[in-house]
C-alpha cells in the first residue's frame, strides 16, 4: 500500500495534466500540463522502482527528465515562434488547416 499512494498521486497528476492539455487554450499552459504528465510518469517510475526493488525505474526516470527538458526547449522555441508570427499564443486560433 506504500506504492499505492504514489500511484494515486501520480494518477491525479496525470489527470490534471490531461485536463490542462484538453482545456487550456494558452500554449504555455498546455506545455506545463504536459510537464505534469511527464512528472506523473516519473513519479510512477520511481515508485515502481522502489516497489520492484530494481534500478531500471530510476534510470528510466532520468532519461525522461532529460528528454522532457529537451522537449520543453523545443516547445518554448515554437511558442516563441508563433508568438512572433501571430502575436498570440492562443491555440484555438491555430486552425488554418482543417477538414
Amino acid at each position, binding site marked *: 500500500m506504500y506504492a499505492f499512494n504514489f500511484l494515486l498521486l501520480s494518477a491525479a497528476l496525470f489527470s490534471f495534466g*490531461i485536463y490542462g*492539455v*484538453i*482545456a*487550456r*487554450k494558452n500554449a504555455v499552459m*498546455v506545455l506545463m500540463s504536459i510537464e505534469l504528465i511527464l512528472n506523473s510518469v516519473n513519479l510512477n517510475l520511481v515508485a515502481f522502482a522502489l516497489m520492484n526493488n530494481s534500478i531500471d525505474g530510476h534510470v528510466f526516470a532520468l532519461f525522461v527528465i532529460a528528454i522532457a527538458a529537451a522537449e520543453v526547449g523545443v516547445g518554448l522555441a515554437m511558442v516563441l515562434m508563433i508568438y512572433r508570427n501571430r502575436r498570440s499564443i492562443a*491555440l*484555438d486560433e*491555430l*486552425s*488554418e*488547416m*482543417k*477538414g
Partner: protein
Amino acid sequence: MSQPSMLLAAEESGHAIGEASGWFLENAWLIPVIPAVAFFLILFFGKKLPRGGSEFGLAAMLGSLVIAAGATWQWISSTTSHYDEAGNYEVEPVIREIVWWQSGPYEFGLGQHIDGLAIMALLLVAFISTLVQLYSTEYVNGDRRYTHYFAALTLFSSGMLAMVLAPDMVQLILGWEIMGLCSFMLIGHWWEEQANSKAALKAFFTVRVGDMGLLVGTAMLLAIFGTLQISEINALAAAGEFDSQNMLMWTAVALFIACIGKSGQFPLHTWLPDAMAGPTPVSSLLHSSTMVVAGVFLVARIYPVFHVGLDINAAGQSVNLIAAIGGITLLVAAALAFVQNDIKKVLAYSTVSQLGYMMMGLGVGAWTGAVFHIFTHAFFKCCLFLAAGSISHTAAHHSFDMKKDMGGIWKKMPVTFGAWMVSTAALMGIPFTAGFFSKDEIIDSAKHFEYTWFYYAGIIGAFMTAAYMTRATYLTFFGKPRGAAAHYMGVEHDTHGEVHEHSAHPDEAEHADGHIPDHTVDAHDDHGHDDDHAHDGHATHGRPLPFAPFDSPWKITAPLIILAALAVGAGYLNAPALKIYWFEHQTESSIGLPIDHGDDHGGEETEEPHGDEEALVVSEVAAGANGPFASAAEGGDHSYEPSGPYAVPAPPVFTWANAAPGLILVALGILVSWFASLAVFARRKNPFSPFVGLTTRSRPIGALHSFLVNKLYLDHLYEKVIVRAVAHPIAKAAYWFNQNVIDGIVNTVGTVTRRLGGWVYRNIDQRVVDGAVNASGTAASESGHALQPVQSGKVNQYGALLFGAAGIGAILLIILNG
C-alpha cells in the same frame, strides 16, 4: 445414358432390311453443300458477273437437282430390290456423319440421313428451287439487289436441304434457322418501305417464338433419349425406351410449338400473310411450297416422338393437339382466304389452310397422306404463286389486287391461265389431280381412324377451298379487265367503275375494302425496280396493246408449265384410287414406327386389353414392353418389325364412297362460288346491262330481274343467305378477330415487351441496381463529409479526441479482459 442402338440391332439381325447404296446416296450431303458454296460465290463475285450471280445460283440448284435425282433413282432401285415377303419396303437409311461437335459423352453429327422422306423432300426442294430460280431471273430482272436476292435464295435452298437430310436434331435446327434468316432477308427484300421490313421482322419474331419450343424440345429429347440422332430417337421412341411418357408428351408439345410457328399454324399464322411483302417467287418458294412445310416435315421426321408422346391413334382418342391445331388452322385460314382482295394473300391463307391439312393428317395418323400432301401441295401451290406473279408481272403492273388490277385476262395469258386452272383444280381436290389423292387420303384417314370431328373439318375445308379458289379465279381471270389489267388488255379502263360500284353498293364496298385495314402488303412489286425503266425500259412486257406480248416470257412460263404438269402428274405416285401405293412404299420406312396392317385401328391391337384410359395405359404398355425389347435387342434376333408397342395404322383402303361426300362438297363449293362471283362481281362490272342498272336503282325490279334471270336465283341465295348472313359475317368476324385479336396479341406482345424493357431499364436498372452502386459511392463521400468537422484544426480538440479514445479504449479493454 447409353442406349442400345436400334440400328445396330437391326443391322445384326440382317434379314428383311436392305442396303441402300450407290454413289449418289453416299454423297447426298453434297446437295446442300453445293448451294452453300454457291452462296459464298455469289456474295463475293456475284456483282462482277454479267448476270449478277444468278448463274451460280441456277447452276448450283441444277447440280443439287442432279444429285438429288440420282439419289432418288438409286433409292428407288434399292427399295424395289428389297421388297420383302411381308409387304414392306424396309431399307436401311443411308446415314453418314462426321463429328460436328463433341461434348463429353455426346457427339453430334453433321452429315446425311437419307431415307424415303428425305429423298422426297430433297428432290422436291431441289426441283422447285431450280424452277423458282429460273423464274426469278426474269421476275426480278433489273432489281437493284438482284445479286443479294439470288444469294439469299440460294442460301435458303441450302438451309432447307440441310434440314431435310439432317441426321441429327442440331443439323435440323441449323437448316431451320437458316431458312428463317433467308425468310427474313427475302421478305424484307425491299426494305426501303417500312411495311416490308416490319413484315420481315414480324415473320422472324413469330417463328422465333416458336423456335423456343424447338430449342427446349431438343434439350428435352436429349434428356429423354440421351442422343439427338434422329434415327436413334425414332427407334427408341418407337420401342418405348424412355422413362416418362409424360415427359415425352411435353417434348412433343414443345417441338410442336416450333412447328406451329414455322408452319403458320393457328394461332401463330399471322406472319405468313404479311410475309407476302416479299417478291412473289419468294412467296412461292419459301412461303408456300418449302419452308413453311418445315414444321410439318419435322413432325413427320420424328413422328414416333409425336405419335407416342401424344398417343396418336390410341384407342378411343378423338382429338389430339396436332390434329386440333391442324383442324382449326385449316378452317380458320380457309375462311380468311375468302375475304382477301390481294391474290397473294388468298394464296397465303390457302397455304396456311393446306398446312393445316397436313398437320391434321399427321395428327390423325395419316403419315403417308400428310407427307404426300407436302409433296403435291408444293407443286400446285408453287405453281399458283408463280402464276400470280406472272399475272402481276406481265399484266397487272406489279399489282396483286384482284379487284383493282385484274380480271378478264385469261384470253391474253393462256399459259398462265392454264397452269392456274390445273393447279387450282389440284388445290381443290378435283379427282385425278394430285391434290385429290393426297388430300383425300387425309380426310379419309380422319374418318377411318375415328377422328370424326376432323373428318368434318376436312370436308368443310374442302368446300371452302373450292369456294375461295373459285372466287379468286373468277376475279383474276374472268369478268371485265380492271385497272392495270385493262391497260394490259387494251380495254379502256373505266377508272370510275369501282368507285361507282362501291357507292352503289355499300355492302359490297365494305366487303371489298373495309376488311383490309392494314395495307402492309398492298404490295406493288415495282419498288424493287428502278423507276426509270421499270416499265418503259422493259420492252418485253407492260406495254399497252398492241405491243403487249402474248403471256409472260419463257423463263416464267416454263416453270409454270412444268409445275402444272406435276400438279396433276405427281398424284399418280400414290393414287389409292387407282391402287397405286408406290410413294407410300418408298417412304413408309421413314415413319419410324411399324405399320399395323392387321387392323385398321392402329394401336388398338396392343392396347385393347387395357381399356380406354389413354395416357396411363400407354405408359404402362411402354413400361411393360421395355423388358422384352431389351432382351430382344441383346439377343440379336430382333428385327425392325415388332419393335415396340407402338404402330401406325396402315392407310385405309380407298373407296369412292368414302371420297364422295368430300367431292360433292367440292363441286358444290365451286358452283356456289362461281355463281356467286358472277352475281356479285360480274353483274356489277357490266355497265352495259340495263337490268343491272335497274337492280341497283330499284329493289323490287331487281328482285324480279333476279327471278327472271333464272341463274340469279342462286346468286341471291348465295349473296343474301350465304354471303350476307353466314359467310360474310363469319368471315368478317373471323378476319376482325384475326387482325385485331390474334395479330393484335402478336403485335402487343412486341410492344409490351419493348415497353417492359423500357420500364425495367429506367426503374430497375437505372434506379435500383445502378442506383445502389452510385449510392454506395455517395454514401462513402458523404460520410467523409460528415467526418470533416471532427478534423476541426483545434489542437485541444485533437488532444481530447486522442485521450478520449485512449481512455474509452482502456476502459472497454479492462471490461473485456475482466
